[in-house]
């Protein structure tokens, strides 16, 4: 099965990275999280309630809504700040991408690990820019806010297409579909990963340097 993929490409200042990625991923996860399931007896369960909160961005003109789950926020923050640090470090090429991947597990025979099958992937590709004046920063702050607004609208459009999502399984197989580790909410199983890469227009010199570096590192 092919996973649905969505790609957002943005360019912004280094300090806007965390908030920009968080606003996109939190909006996706808000739609992809259910209330906590509570089983009474086999085949009968109750679903908890998802709370939400407004988040004002400091470096972007934007307010977004996310699940009011401290633990989910921690998970996201940890991964996003790892990406942000790598992207903003001195030896970074100034661009990179981070992905939020929803997957389901498929049981396999012992001793193999259960197979992970992705069904939806959201990727944010970022390019860092440097601004000289406060006036430029103000413009960028508004511009990135407008761009993220577009992305949020696109996310809601995708969510209301009602495309494939895994079916709610029986109690025994619940953690093949959902992440049951959170005490307050129950998102679909997801993982995040990031890479920082050189800009697509690599020069011959850079390519050679990279080749040499890679050869030496082996």
């Amino acid at each position, binding site marked *: 099965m092919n996973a649905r993929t969505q790609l957002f490409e943005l360019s912004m200042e280094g300090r806007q990275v965390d908030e920009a990625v968080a606003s996109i991923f939190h909006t996706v996860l808000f739609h992809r999280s259910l209330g906590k399931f509570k089983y009474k007896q086999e085949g009968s369960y109750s679903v*908890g309630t998802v709370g939400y*909160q*407004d988040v004002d961005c400091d470096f972007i003109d934007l307010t977004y809504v996310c699940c*009011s789950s401290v633990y989910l926020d921690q998970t996201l923050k940890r991964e996003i700040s790892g990406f942000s640090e790598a992207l903003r470090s001195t030896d970074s090429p100034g661009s990179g991408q981070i992905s939020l991947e929803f997957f389901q597990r498929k049981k396999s025979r012992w001793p193999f690990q259960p197979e992970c099958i992705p069904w939806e992937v959201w990727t944010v590709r970022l390019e860092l820019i440097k601004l000289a004046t406060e*006036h430029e920063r103000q413009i960028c702050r508004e511009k990135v806010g407008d761009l993220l*607004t577009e992305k*949020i609208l696109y996310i809601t459009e995708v969510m209301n297409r009602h495309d494939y999502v895994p079916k709610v399984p029986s109690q025994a197989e619940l953690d093949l579909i959902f992440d049951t580790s959170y005490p307050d909410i129950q998102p679909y199983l997801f993982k995040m990963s990031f890479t920082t890469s050189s800009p697509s227009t690599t020069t011959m010199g850079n390519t050679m340097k990279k080749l040499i570096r890679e050869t030496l590192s082996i």
Partner: protein
Amino acid sequence: MSTQLSMQDKKDLEKFTKYLALRAAQIIVQSRSGQKVNTMCKPDSSAGDWFNLAIKELPEVSADAKRALCGEIVSSSVPLCIEISLKTVEGDKMVLETWSLGVLPEQSDPTVRVTYTVYNRMGILLKSLLSVSRTAPAYKLSRRQGPDSYTMCYRIYMGDPQLHNLGDNYKHMRVGQLCTPVGTIHLSVSYRTKMTISPTHKGRDSIMLKSDHFHSDLSPRHARYQQSEETSKSLSDTIKVGAFVINKPVIVNEEDLVIPDVPFSSLLTPKQTSPPPGLLMNPTNTKTATAGATTDSNNGNNERLNNDNTTSKCASQNGSRRSSCSMTSANDDFIMVDLKTPFAVTNTNSDVGAFYRDCQSAPQLQAFMEERTLAEQLGDLTKQLETFETNMQHYEDMLSSLCQTENNN
């Protein structure tokens, strides 16, 4: 289609749709309250928590929405509208946006499960509404509202959305839709893009606020640079005319420029308009007065020409007690003033000023002093070559001695 739908499903669907409308109204109105919303996640949902979403309930909004719904939204051919408007302290009102939730009976999906699928999709639609409501322009305005500026108002009604209140070029944004066995439920918003308010109350004076304080083009620094650019255009432009001076161009006769033998004689003839003595010391002023046309000229040659005229005139009156000015043309910004006091003894021989003038510019090369013919110059060359040849031995000795000293080192 409706025959396929069981009575229970139909009842459920009506109930779900009603609660969807009520919760949507709550979300919209609360999003324009100016407050940040924060509700807690609850592992155990209570009876009031519809669609597994912790939406706060404002009783007033619920009552208004219920009154407007007045029955079933599903059976209604018109949508439920929630209108958000802005009201200023002056009493001016402007409609910002109109949200509408309706059912299109043309598109329906009889196979969809009411209790599970429709209910969950309604939950997703409300989540989308929460996300979208924060992105509309009215959200930012609502966060800035206050009792001394403006406040947000809402109106809930059944009927076609009144979009003419939104001004020209209003925009439409779709939040989402979902198929049910009786039709497609759709939720959308139309919002104003022109934010100019036309005051209805005249005669009220409000302070005009200018928000260009930090505009770079208007900063004092920028203005200063501009000013200095202007100054450099013409020096004469900077000469300020006194506040009560009759703005009349001063006409100067050539004779007036020549200082008469008797000092301050002009003072003795009050009727005659003569330039002040300081005039001669100001080259630009002289220029404007005599040449007139060269006022705006910044050309150094012109200036020099003028100055030469002045000095030559002064020179013709040599020997008389006078104040003369001499401008060195080599360096325009340096003005050497040779002051001769009217009652001092004339001493032309030990003229420090003259000495200074002589030394200031390099003397002319003698080579250019006397014109020589080509034949003379050529003869010079052969003579020179001859001397070089005779001294050849001497040059070689010097070269070898240099080589030797190098070796010694």
